[in-house]
């Protein structure tokens, strides 16, 4: 039913296994086999230990474990320290430190190189910005000048129109009174002016017709 369970090993002192040629030794029940019919409903009685004894045992065990753990850790740290104080370890440390210093110096050199590159780049940028600023300033100046010229032109144009100043006012009034403006005129689509209220178009010959519209 179970089949022969593998090796027949005796409790040996030395390394080699000794084969036994006698009967098959029952070491244990094969793992996949079912429970025996006399054993399936068996309930093993749980060992009942009173609470205070449990507490006492727990206390003792805890103390023991704590001491063992701390001792073990202490010895581990001591062994580490010993390893570090040995000659080989010290040599290693020295080599490592030297290597580290060398790498730090390399790092410094590289930093300097990057710094130089950065300075150059910043210089180029500064020049560019300077040029830009100058160009914009020049542009602004030019624009201001043009603006001034425009203003002057406008002013001269305005000044050239006949203004009535306080000196001219009496003369202007006399002129205006002497020459009243008659608005009774009509315009043709072709631009001819017909003055007067009572004039009829047919009465005027063709020569006297066209008149310039002043202003």
């Amino acid at each position, binding site marked *: 039913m179970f089949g022969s369970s593998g090796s027949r*090993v005796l409790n040996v002192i030395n390394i080699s296994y000794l084969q036994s040629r006698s009967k098959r030794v029952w070491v244990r029940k094969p793992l996949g086999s079912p429970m025996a019919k006399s054993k399936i409903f068996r309930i093993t009685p749980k060992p009942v230990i009173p609470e205070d004894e449990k507490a006492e045992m727990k206390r003792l065990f805890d103390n023991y474990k704590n001491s063992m753990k701390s001792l073990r850790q202490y010895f581990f740290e001591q062994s580490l320290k010993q390893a570090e104080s040995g000659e080989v370890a010290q040599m290693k440390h020295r080599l490592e430190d030297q290597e580290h210093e060398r790498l730090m110096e390399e790092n410094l050199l590289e930093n300097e190189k990057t710094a130089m590159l*950065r300075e150059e780049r910043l210089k180029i940028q500064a020049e560019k910005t300077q040029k830009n600023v100058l160009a914009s300033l020049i542009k602004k100046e030019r624009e201001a000048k043009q603006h001034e010229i425009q203003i002057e032109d406008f002013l001269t144009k305005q000044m050239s129109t006949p203004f009535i100043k306080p000196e001219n006012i009496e003369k202007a009034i006399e002129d205006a009174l002497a020459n009243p403006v008659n608005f009774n005129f009509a315009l043709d689509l072709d631009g001819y002016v017909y003055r007067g209220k009572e004039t009829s178009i047919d009465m005027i010959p063709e020569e006297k017709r066209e008149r310039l519209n002043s202003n």
Partner: protein
Amino acid sequence: MPFMKGPAPIRRTMEYLDRNKLVLKERVKIFSINYNTKGENHEGARQFVFWHLPQLQFKNPNIQISTFKNLTPSPFIRCYLENGEEVLMDVDFKSKDEIYERVRRIICKSEETLKAEDKLDNPANFGSKCQKHCICEVPGQLPCPSLVPLPKSWRGKYKFQKPDEL
């Protein structure tokens, strides 16, 4: 199965995190990098942080890595060592690969040290992360004492036990 979320989620895969050589030396305790979010000369630093910072933290779970953004006009990396020393690396206008190489050369363990410390490679190491769990698995060595008990004269509890003093 859907795609992984986020930009470049390959950075979150175990293979990617494992496959790098950025194991910092033991004397480095803090690794900080200053960079800006805008600016051409910070591009390399930004890329380095994006691609390689997760790898760095994965390989060095016990050091503090911090990033500072938009504080200085030029980017740099600053490492604080055990003895108070500071390693300053100017990283202005460098590409991400240059920064990676520089960090590896200056403050990471070299390939030889990594190999020497590698437990898996060396068959002389035994344990959970090594090729064999115990020396008893090696043919030609003592079998496991759980199967074949050692002779009493080899066991410490019998050698040092002084039954008359107990």
